[in-house]
């Protein structure tokens, strides 16, 4: 195997390990930190089923963001929807045989790439042009958008300009998953694309990308509004009652 293949093999094992371990650690940390008081932003659902629905609207439709304004919602939603479809489309590199619904998605996945890039470009423009948003942006906020844009662009370059040996790419990733490393096709745009993706995986658990697991643990969104009906008491607060 070439040096490049070896490097990418190592890189992806490392990136996957960091991503999974980092997220698992963060999620465990969120889960074990108590929420001593009931603080749902009301009006809030009064049943668990209602909370599931609220969370689903939040995660799938970005309900709160929609309330805040149409433009930001449109760009944010377009980007995330595009990203989701693109990710699903990529499942074909990790499954053999390719699942039927993934195959069905393929043509949409292509448009999704454009949607994702358009959404990202809009978000970046907003960050630069709007005084308020420029004020709150850190360098990492800009770089994050640029990184995602570069991933989308390098992906589309491989699709539309310099075609990549996707059979070889698939063999590489199936090999990784079966712990039977295979060579990666020699291909500049592919190297760029994969390096950037690995970088994204590496920073995920240490950055604001934690909003993805975070939203599920947000007490203002995931709590049932039933304080009068059921007594909610955290362990550290309960200790005060002994005294």
């Amino acid at each position, binding site marked *: 195997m070439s040096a490049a293949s070896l490097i990418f093999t190592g890189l992806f094992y490392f990136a996957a390990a960091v991503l999974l371990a980092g997220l698992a650690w963060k999620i465990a940390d*969120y889960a074990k930190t108590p929420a001593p008081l009931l603080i749902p932003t009301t009006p809030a659902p009064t049943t668990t089923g209602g909370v599931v629905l609220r969370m689903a609207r939040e995660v799938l439709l970005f309900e*709160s963001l929609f309330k*805040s304004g149409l433009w930001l919602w449109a760009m944010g939603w377009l980007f995330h929807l595009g990203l989701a479809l693109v990710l699903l489309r990529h499942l074909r590199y990790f499954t053999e045989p390719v699942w039927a619904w993934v195959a069905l998605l393929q043509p949409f996945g292509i448009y999704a790439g454009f949607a994702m890039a358009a959404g990202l470009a809009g978000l970046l423009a907003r960050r630069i042009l709007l005084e308020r948003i420029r*004020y709150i942006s*850190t360098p990492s906020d800009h770089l994050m958008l640029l990184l995602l844009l570069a991933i989308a662009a390098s992906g589309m370059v491989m699709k539309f300009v310099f075609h990549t040996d996707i059979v070889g790419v698939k063999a590489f990733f199936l090999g990784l998953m079966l712990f039977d490393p295979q060579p990666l096709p020699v291909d500049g745009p592919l190297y760029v694309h994969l390096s950037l993706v690995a970088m994204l995986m590496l920073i995920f658990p*240490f950055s604001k990308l*934690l909003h993805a697991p*975070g939203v599920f643990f947000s007490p203002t969104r995931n709590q049932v509004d039933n*304080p009068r009906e059921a007594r909610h008491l955290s362990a550290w607060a309960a200790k005060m009652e002994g005294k």
Partner: protein
Amino acid sequence: MAGPEIKAPEMRAYPLIPRLAPGAMAATKSYVANEKVQEEIGFPGKLVDDWHDKAIGKMGELLGKYRSLKVFMDSCVHCGACSDKCHYFLGTGDPKNMPVARQDLMRSVYRRHFTLAGKLVPKLVGARELTRDVLDEWYSYFNQCSECRRCSVFCPYGIDTAEVTMAAREILDCVGYGQKYSNEIIGKVHKIGNNLGLPGPALANTLEGLEEDVLEDTGVAVRYPLDVKGAEVLLVTPSADFFAEPHIESLIGYGKVFHAAGISWTLSTKASEAGNFGMFIGNYEQLRKIAMRVREAALELGVKRIVVGECGHAWRVAYSFWNTLTGIGEGAAGGKPDPFAIQLQSQLDHRYRQPMHICELTWDLIGAGAISFDKEANDHRIITFHDSCNVARGSRMGDTAGGQFEIPRNIIRAVANHYVEMAPGTTHEQTFCCGGGGGLLTDDLLDLRIKGALPRMEALNLVAGGQGVNFMATICAICKAQFSKILPYYGFKMGMVGGVHQLVSTSIKLGDK
């Protein structure tokens, strides 16, 4: 004072988001608590020498105790959805009054001390050391947030700046850098029993005087009882209701409702304050200690029901936290043995909601036909309703979500003929804070209070001009006090604000019982 000195911002028909005015409010600092005030409630008297390490230590402790804080520190993506939602930003243009920027005052320090990225590449991720300047900035701007939660409505992750503000104030208190107004009030609650420092005998006098006034006014002997053992209802209400205008009009109203419905009730000297500033300063121990007075009073008096008067944050604490803090509610903790909660819960009458808002009580009575009204008595008023933040976004009334919006409005429509809604986007869950909540109702922050009221005043101005609205009803003692003070700065009459039970009081038929 001869006339208003501070000028209010101009009201516009179509409000725009202001241009940024960096530093505009940096010098606005409410008075720092002195040694006596601090020490009385168990905080260091002045800024401790090792404040930096203490503050970071406290932050670590809070991150471990409050999931909200931990998740909120990590999750913000700087999308800016909240950036134009704070009334203090809209009124001042100071970028640090944007909710996200306010959070970032703490988040930057969080990143520096508690995240890998902030330790490795602080500049890149906006991480900062907690310097004395940063600490002063915390003091300024975390005392320019009314903890109204409006920003949390719009954040895609539900990040509630109020939670961050509470944590910051808790840290500041613990290093000896507390705010005078809130901490002094907490001291008074413990010493005297209420925020305004009204001692028991004075309270008894006031209530007697009130009975005389109402008798003279209506010819009916409505009672305002204090410390009556065995009464059915314990009413816990903000102490402003005992003597401040227009608050007292609502107190008169509560008494008339109890009288007309024939419910025996009492106030309590020990729990002569519904307000709980423990929430404002984010200190769980104080929050609990202040709430415990109500539990103790209820046990001593042997009441069957606990009803809360018109006070926004008090209702949030009562509705959302009392069961947790004091066992006023239903259901033992997680089905486990819970003798603490059961002691009080077995005394209370669970055919009624516990605790209950006075509006729930009145509305239930109206529904049952137990009280009736001469609606025309309110015909001189064209009424609108200002939703108070803590009621709107931190509590509920009735059995369905959103009852906190419907029930007060239903009461107004049942007791008066002319009701007008303010513009959507300024009411219900998106209501604008009065500008004086969250421990900011102090004259040393008058400038901020006037500017922060701008969005509400603009909405009021539209219905006042268009539909002739001349009365803004609200169910919060802070809203009432704040509006009474700042309405004149905007060219409105001070008496334009009042309670929902003031309207009830005007038109309720007392009959003779």
